[in-house]
């Protein structure tokens, strides 16, 4: 401290001189005429040059503030990006569905899947549409890719649909190419199979499976999936495994076809079956 005071004492003359110079300059800058304005420009340039000279030296506090601010905007941008990605995907899905809706001849109700079970032997989906949207039990549920299932329960605003991955759902189907008929059902273990197909039937890997006109629930021609395996199960039937077009793990929006089974046809078939028995 003593050394510092002694050092400052030696510089006393220069300190006072500097103070007087600063006082003079402050007085000058209080004026507002052309000379002063010009000097101010020079001063700004000089200060700017000096600041530019040491701008490469990092200011820790400034860096910390900047870092914090950047992190905050990074989080904001990430959120925004995620929303945009989500919107883009949704837009693609909805576009595709809109195209399908315009293509199809049926009246449809668009629903969003709000609940889903995929780990049981009887899997279902819950939709956010119900009686208010004219949804009724038995109506087929599809997407632009293919068949999803059928409505089995309805409330005012919600409905539940059995999906293809449900042991209780059996559908009359046919091979699109060769028109071979069969029954499609889920084996409860992960495979959708086409049953009742004789070993001599013309079914090949890659063949597309569609709903048959024999079905009293689903309109004919709705694509379901394609054949992945066509091994002979025993001496009589083939073991045909089908990969569904609809990916039940990712599907989010569906259509409910406002098409109900023909009651007259159903009654006739019922009566005939009873008579035969």
């Amino acid at each position, binding site marked *: 401290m003593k050394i510092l005071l002694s050092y400052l004492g030696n510089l*006393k*003359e220069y300190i*006072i*001189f500097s103070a*007087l*110079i600063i*006082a*003079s*300059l*402050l*007085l*000058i*800058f*209080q*004026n507002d*005429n*052309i*000379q*002063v*304005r*010009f*000097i101010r420009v*020079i001063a700004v340039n000089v200060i700017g040059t000096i600041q530019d000279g040491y701008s490469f030296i990092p200011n820790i506090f400034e860096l910390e503030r900047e870092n914090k601010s950047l992190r905050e905007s990074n989080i904001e941008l990430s959120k925004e990006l995620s929303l945009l990605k989500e919107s883009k995907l949704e837009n693609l899905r909805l576009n595709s569905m809109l195209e399908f809706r315009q293509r199809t001849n049926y009246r449809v109700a668009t629903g969003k899947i709000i609940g889903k079970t995929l780990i049981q032997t009887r899997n279902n989906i819950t939709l956010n549409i119900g009686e208010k949207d004219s949804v009724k039990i038995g109506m087929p549920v599809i997407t632009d890719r293919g068949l999803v299932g059928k409505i089995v329960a309805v409330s005012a605003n919600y409905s539940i649909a059995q999906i293809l991955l449900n042991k209780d759902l059996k559908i009359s189907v046919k091979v699109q190419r060769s028109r071979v008929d069969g029954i499609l059902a889920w084996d409860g273990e992960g495979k959708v199979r086409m049953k009742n197909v004789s070993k001599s039937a013309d079914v090949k890997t890659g063949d597309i499976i569609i709903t048959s006109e024999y079905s009293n629930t689903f309109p004919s021609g709705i694509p379901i999936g394609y054949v992945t395996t066509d091994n002979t199960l025993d001496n009589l039937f083939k073991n045909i495994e089908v990969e569904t077009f609809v990916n039940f793990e990712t599907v989010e929006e569906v259509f409910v076809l406002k098409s109900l089974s023909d009651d007259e046809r159903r009654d006739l078939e019922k009566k005939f079956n009873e008579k035969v028995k």
Partner: protein
Amino acid sequence: MKEYLKYAAILLGLIILQKTFVSFIDVTEFRITPDLVIIGLVYVGIKKGKIPGSITGFAAGLVLDIFSFSFIGLMALAKTVSGFVSGFFNNEQKIERYLNSYIFIIIVSICSLVNNSVYYLFYFQGTNLLPADIFIRYILPTTVYTALFAVFPVLFARRRRFAR
């Protein structure tokens, strides 16, 4: 204290002279006048050193600024610098020699040159005058004219010395 009052009185007298009488003896088309205040300021600087020199310069310059009705602070700046420079010639052994000989005229010339350089180079900023023009038209003539007037105090001091 008495001594400082004497210096203040001398400088005040010189300022009054500068603002009244000196304008009658201007020369050249650029109305160059001698700077009598700087002569008094150099005297104080040689006698008392850098701090009194610069403080006196600042005070005298400020008074001149106020009376000049130009922009305040410029003459204070120029006189502070020249007062400080004159303080470099404050040497106990040589004070009398500096004040009573023609060395005083040289010191006045140096301080006047510094004073005029600071003042005119600032004063003509923003105009089309080049620094060289400013030097030839204003700085040099004012310095020489001031140096001529510095002869009088030297003669006065020498006469007093001989009278003793």
